[in-house]
């Protein structure tokens, strides 16, 4: 019979075993338990069975991940073993359906893709494989989506900021903002500091970027060549004999195979084309931007600068319930002066079109006091969205004050149908750059995709909110078409909640900006229209 303490220990040991981080000491302890206690063996069996079942259920829900070539060959061989003659065609079809299409419990995959995680940002003489629809520059790529390039070059920019140049023929799968799988072909990865930790995997190695440029080539299953062009990478071989990570630095080259890792002197020439600068065709973005610098308060107005929006000058008017005036509202900011919000003040700017369903990027610098009260979390910036699908609801950018949902003080965006939470603490008395990108999505279960960046690094993506009460679908005409700064928004106007902190250089783009564009504006603080499309890490 196991005590509660025994169970806790066994749970720790089993979890460490499952996650591959069992220490020698723990290994000894687990062996002792299993050798000496039938109850412990039964607990172990239940825990391992639970883990196997979780693999099964997660596979069922997972987006499409094609089996590796290695697995496909195996199943075809098995098919040959099972159905040597055409006389059992029906059985063959059944078997192929079961195994070949991935309906096997451990390999079961849905055909549905996940949310947007990357974008095709450049093409050069691209010819796509006939098995997929041709992709245009600017195409958003979803988690689990594969791109198959027959020839030419394609540039894929991930939401983390990592950028891959693909040389055809090649097959790449975008997995997440932080991860890609190269099935075949050659790529060059350029990873800016904001995307540190980005990984590219193939069947024999996983390359974890440590701030660098590297090239990877997969000619055939089981063989991959890696060359570091700049900085360093951590390469983790995925072979039966070797799983020790290797740190490679500039100009180092390795060949990874199922049988081991080798130094090969003649690999550089294979990367000759992809490492050269490629004159990509890119989408030209006629950007529409508005900026409030908060450098000078004239009366109760902060002047706005508008670039290509046709909005005129949507100046922000400062409002307060008190009669103290606005004498101390300008403090030193990141660029010139900044707006100081004391828990009473807020500002609003007319912004025609902001309440419509469209892509939008909101960026600003913010400083939150270390001792900011919980009531001062909402909202740095807010606006109302009239969405026929999601209802008529405000978008609030603030910091999280709900400990049940995430760490207190991290960036939080609430919108109709979902919310996003970051991981970087903002409540530290320092200036941080914040950007929130909202993109309407065709997915009926998640009609809005949200991404947050803090100091240029991807810091939280939107997820659906738990089902709530009924909400109005009638467009709100009272608070719409206005950008609200420093207050929480209700259907009839600002609520009592006010943001406490300082805000500087607020930019709104009527476009979903990419990670490099956000970093460029963060660093240069200017309307880099025309340059943005060329923005490189």
């Amino acid at each position, binding site marked *: 019979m196991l005590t509660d303490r025994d169970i806790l220990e066994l*749970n*720790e040991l089993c*979890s*460490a*075993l*499952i996650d*591959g981080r069992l220490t020698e000491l723990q*290994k000894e302890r*687990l*062996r002792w338990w*299993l050798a000496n206690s039938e109850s412990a*063996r039964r607990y*172990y069996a*239940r*825990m*391992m*069975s*639970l*883990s*196997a*079942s*979780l*693999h099964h*259920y997660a*596979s069922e*829900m*997972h987006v499409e*991940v094609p089996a590796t070539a290695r697995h496909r060959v*195996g*199943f075809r*061989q*098995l098919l040959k*073993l*099972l*159905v040597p003659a055409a*006389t*059992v065609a*029906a*059985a063959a079809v*059944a*078997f192929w359906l*079961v195994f070949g299409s991935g309906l*096997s*419990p*451990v*390999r079961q*995959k849905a055909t549905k893709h996940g949310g947007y995680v990357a974008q095709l940002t450049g093409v050069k003489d691209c010819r796509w494989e006939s098995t997929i629809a041709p992709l245009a520059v600017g195409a958003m790529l979803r988690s689990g989506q594969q791109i198959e390039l027959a020839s030419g070059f394609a540039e894929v920019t991930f939401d983390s900021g990592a950028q891959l140049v693909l040389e055809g023929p090649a097959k790449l799968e975008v997995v*997440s903002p*932080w991860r890609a*799988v190269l099935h075949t072909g050659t790529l060059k990865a350029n990873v800016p500091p904001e995307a540190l930790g980005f990984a590219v995997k193939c069947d024999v190695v996983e390359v974890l970027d440590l701030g660098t440029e590297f090239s990877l080539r997969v000619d055939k299953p089981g063989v991959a060549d890696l060359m570091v062009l700049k900085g360093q990478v951590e390469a983790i071989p995925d072979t*039966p004999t070797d*799983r020790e990570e290797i740190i490679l630095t500039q100009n180092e080259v390795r060949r990874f195979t199922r049988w081991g890792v080798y130094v090969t002197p003649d690999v550089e020439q294979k990367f000759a084309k992809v490492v050269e600068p490629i004159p990509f065709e890119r989408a030209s973005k006629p950007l529409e931007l508005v900026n409030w610098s908060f450098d000078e308060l004239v009366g109760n107005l902060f002047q706005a600068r508008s670039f290509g929006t046709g909005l005129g000058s949507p100046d922000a008017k400062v409002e307060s319930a008190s009669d103290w005036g606005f004498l101390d509202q300008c403090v030193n900011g990141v660029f010139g002066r900044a707006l100081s919000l004391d828990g009473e003040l807020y500002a609003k700017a007319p912004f025609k079109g902001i309440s419509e369903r469209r892509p939008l990027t909101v960026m600003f610098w913010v400083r939150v006091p270390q001792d900011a009260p919980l009531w001062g979390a909402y909202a740095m910036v807010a606006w109302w969205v009239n969405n026929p699908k999601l209802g008529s609801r405000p978008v609030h950018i603030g910091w999280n004050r709900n400990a049940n*949902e995430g760490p207190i003080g991290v960036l939080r965006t609430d919108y109709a149908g979902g919310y996003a*939470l*970051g991981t970087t603490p903002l409540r530290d008395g320092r200036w941080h750059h914040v950007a929130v990108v909202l993109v309407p999505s065709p997915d009926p279960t998640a009609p809005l995709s949200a991404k947050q960046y803090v100091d240029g690094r991807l*810091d*939280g*993506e939107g*997820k659906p909110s*738990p089902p709530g009460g009924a909400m109005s679908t009638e467009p709100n005409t009272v608070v719409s078409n206005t950008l609200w700064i420093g207050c929480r928004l209700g259907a009839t106007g600002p609520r009592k909640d006010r943001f406490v902190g300082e805000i500087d250089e607020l930019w709104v783009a009527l476009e979903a900006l990419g990670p490099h564009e956000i970093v460029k504006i963060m660093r240069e603080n200017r309307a880099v229209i025309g340059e943005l499309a060329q923005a490189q890490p």
Partner: protein
Amino acid sequence: MNDQIQSDSSPETQRQKLLVSLITQHQRRIFAYIYALVHNRHDAEDLLQETNEVICEKFNEFEEGTDFVAWACQIAYWRVRYWRQRHARAKVVFDDDLLSQVAQTLSTMRKELDTRHEALAICLEKLHPRDRELIMARYEPDGSVREAAYRTGRSLEAAYKALSRLRKLLLDCVTHQLAKEL
């Protein structure tokens, strides 16, 4: 055409249909058995594939009406033993005696583990969405703790701790669920 019809109903064809049906129906159970012995998804998948091949080769030895899963798990057990010889240093946690003891315990618990699998689906539904997301990101194909930590905005250490806590939570929930159904 007649030959085809005759051929489709031949004993050999019927036997192969039975093989397809059994192997399909019980893949998850055989995988779970192997996984408990090698405790790594990719190794378990490779071994499942090897086991499937042996099952196909030796299916003429299987007696219809007897316990297919027990027979298949016996094949899987010997594939695991053979695999352990190849990876003796790097991957083996238990010695042969302990492996045999664990395999025996697994065999006696098959029915219970099946029921627990079904109950787990209900318990997963009950998890907080943030916790469920962590579990799914960890366990999806090619998932890892590192990836799950990134996706759910946790540090790596926090993700390890949360996963350990959630496994215990789910195990307890399944036990509670089964007790309720009795």
